[in-house]
């Protein structure tokens, strides 16, 4: 009993010390992140986690961060978001499309906390949305593919036919055909964001059917690796990575990749919330904002092509070139955007078709 008492006293002292400490120094704000897949070493979630780390470093002392990885989209996500909030988080970033409704629900339950949802479209007083113009990077990859291809066939391993993925496929196609009008893009849907085995099989299938430029909108490095292997048999077989720079998985065959950089956005947003100046977020940032960037180009890309790409990149940044500048023609030949104007953001967000030059049939929802 005596012993218990003394332990209690010690504990009390400790608590007291802790509370005085926090009184002297305002407690850092906790920022929570919800990830859809494991952080891993490359890919969608990895890029978000890099952003989290950058933000934490930039705001050192003012914030602490916490993340939960591999959270399924749907009901489970709501539980995780709630737990982050009740665990002390003031700001939560949810980084996958399927978290939209759970985020909205929790946001309405905690009006004094702040929520940010990636790639969705629902906002609230305390809920902002953010996204990146991935298609700008895709367009440039397409241009390089068009310059490098010999078979005039590109292969595209894709996850689900949602607007964001279709923007990528269509922008890649537009880019490729802007320099190689004969080119066609073939798509295999694997109906999974993450299944290295399936992604690899899809890539090998496309390669065996004549594609010499392959890319992917899935989460693993399998496509880049498959291309690297087959590069030994066909020296003109190249790949383009997505999300992250995956050149170490395809040192001789991965030409570049469209990468996402979230760090600046996270830092800026959290700063605004901390300062009380936040007025709602609806960010759709592109190359101009530094949210999309091409990974360093492979040495296999000829200098002339490199120059073109740099030029195009600058044009995109300056707003002089839009990957979906009219005329944009659908697969069936219908004109979607007339010559003389660019596709609007609303039109981009509702994309549910292939443009001309994509060879496959679009699965219907």
């Amino acid at each position, binding site marked *: 009993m005596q012993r218990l008492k003394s332990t209690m006293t010690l504990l009390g002292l400790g608590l007291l010390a802790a509370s005085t400490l926090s009184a002297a120094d305002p407690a850092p704000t906790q920022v929570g992140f919800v990830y859809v897949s494991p952080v891993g070493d490359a890919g969608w979630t990895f890029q978000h986690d890099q952003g989290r780390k950058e933000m934490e470093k930039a705001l050192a002392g003012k914030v602490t961060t916490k993340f939960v990885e591999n959270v399924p989209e749907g009901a489970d996500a709501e539980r995780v978001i709630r737990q982050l909030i009740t665990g002390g988080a003031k700001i939560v970033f949810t980084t996958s499309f399927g978290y939209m409704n759970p985020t909205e629900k929790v946001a309405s339950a905690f009006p004094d906390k702040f929520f940010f949802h990636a790639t969705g479209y629902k906002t609230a007083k305390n809920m902002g949305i953010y996204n990146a113009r991935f298609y700008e990077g895709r367009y440039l990859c397409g241009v390089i593919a068009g310059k490098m291809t010999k078979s005039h066939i590109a292969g595209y391993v894709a996850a689900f036919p949602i607007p964001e993925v279709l923007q990528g496929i269509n922008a890649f196609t537009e880019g490729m055909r802007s320099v190689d009008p004969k080119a066609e893009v*073939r798509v*295999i849907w694997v*109906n999974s964001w993450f299944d*290295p*085995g*399936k992604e690899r*099989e899809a890539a090998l299938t496309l390669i065996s*059917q004549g*594609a010499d430029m392959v890319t992917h909108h899935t989460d693993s490095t399998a496509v880049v690796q498959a291309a690297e*292997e087959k590069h030994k048999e066909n020296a003109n077989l190249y790949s383009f990575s997505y999300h992250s720079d995956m050149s170490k998985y395809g040192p001789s065959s991965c030409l570049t990749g469209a990468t996402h950089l979230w760090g600046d956005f996270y830092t800026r947003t959290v700063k605004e919330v901390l300062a009380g100046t936040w007025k709602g977020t609806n960010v759709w940032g592109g190359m101009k904002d530094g949210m999309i960037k091409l990974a360093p180009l492979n040495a296999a890309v000829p200098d002339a092509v490199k120059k073109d790409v740099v030029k195009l990149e600058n044009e995109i940044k300056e707003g002089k070139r839009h990957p979906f500048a009219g005329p944009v023609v659908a697969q069936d030949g219908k004109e979607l955007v007339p010559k003389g104007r660019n596709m609007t953001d609303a039109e981009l967000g509702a994309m549910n078709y292939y443009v001309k030059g994509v060879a496959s049939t679009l699965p219907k929802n």
Partner: protein
Amino acid sequence: MELGLVSAVLFATIVAGTPLILTALGELVTEKSGVLNLGAEGIMSVGAVAAFAVTLNTGSPLLGILAGMVAGMAMSALFGFAALTLQANQVASGLALSIFGVGLSAFVGKPYESQTLSSVPPFKIPLLSKLPVLGHALFEQQALVYFSWVMLAAVAWFLYRTRWGLVLRAVGETPVAAHAIGYNVLRIRYLAAIFGGAMAGIGGAFLSVFYTPLWVEGMVAGRGWISLALVVFATWRPLRVMFGAYLFGGAMITQMFVQGSGLRLDIPAQFLSSLPYLATVVVLVLISRNRSTIRLNSPASLGQPFMPDA
């Protein structure tokens, strides 16, 4: 259809089916002894990460396979301890093992996520690999593919042509009778479960060292569960397990070739993607629809604990 394409489809089908065959054969033997181990997904994950780590550090895929096998055996021994020695519910223990294995592999595998292996060259069988069409598809495969065929023959021979196979099946049918005539039911069940773990570990090793030479969390992607389902739909018959695995792999590869051909087909890709599952279930149900053969082949005491003292 050109012959090159047939060969390519066939080749990819066999590769895709191999991890399923390896794992399902092991599970079949386990279940034949009356033990239901639902942990295949977890065992494959642990096998995959163990094989990857050892191959990366030693440069020897063979040692990698051995590591995967040993890891699988350890995992299933753990299951045996819970479900056989402690008589815990087999379904619950198996599910727990699955969750545990997937989590453990993610934890142990963290430092390996950024690493890659160079791909292992296929093992060409002289002369046979020169055959037109079939040569490339059947005889220019990874060594583990041939191993899966050897194991198929070995399991079928063991179960139906040897005395110990008969004993194992007896333990799965009526453990009480087997016990009464002096067989150590628990030991036999342990051995069967450990064999199952070894095979699932090798199946995992195939994924991380040969199929996609990398390790990432979640890379088994449900193949353990598919293997479990295959055993049931194949009504516990080894040859049908292989048939089902290739059917599954074949349907998956074929739908990809259809999509990648650039043909304009008015079939939703989601339907094409679900085709492997549908085709496998439908076909295996059709060929196994005879009730009496199901009863004949399914182990009567599957999933039921046995207490030697009772």
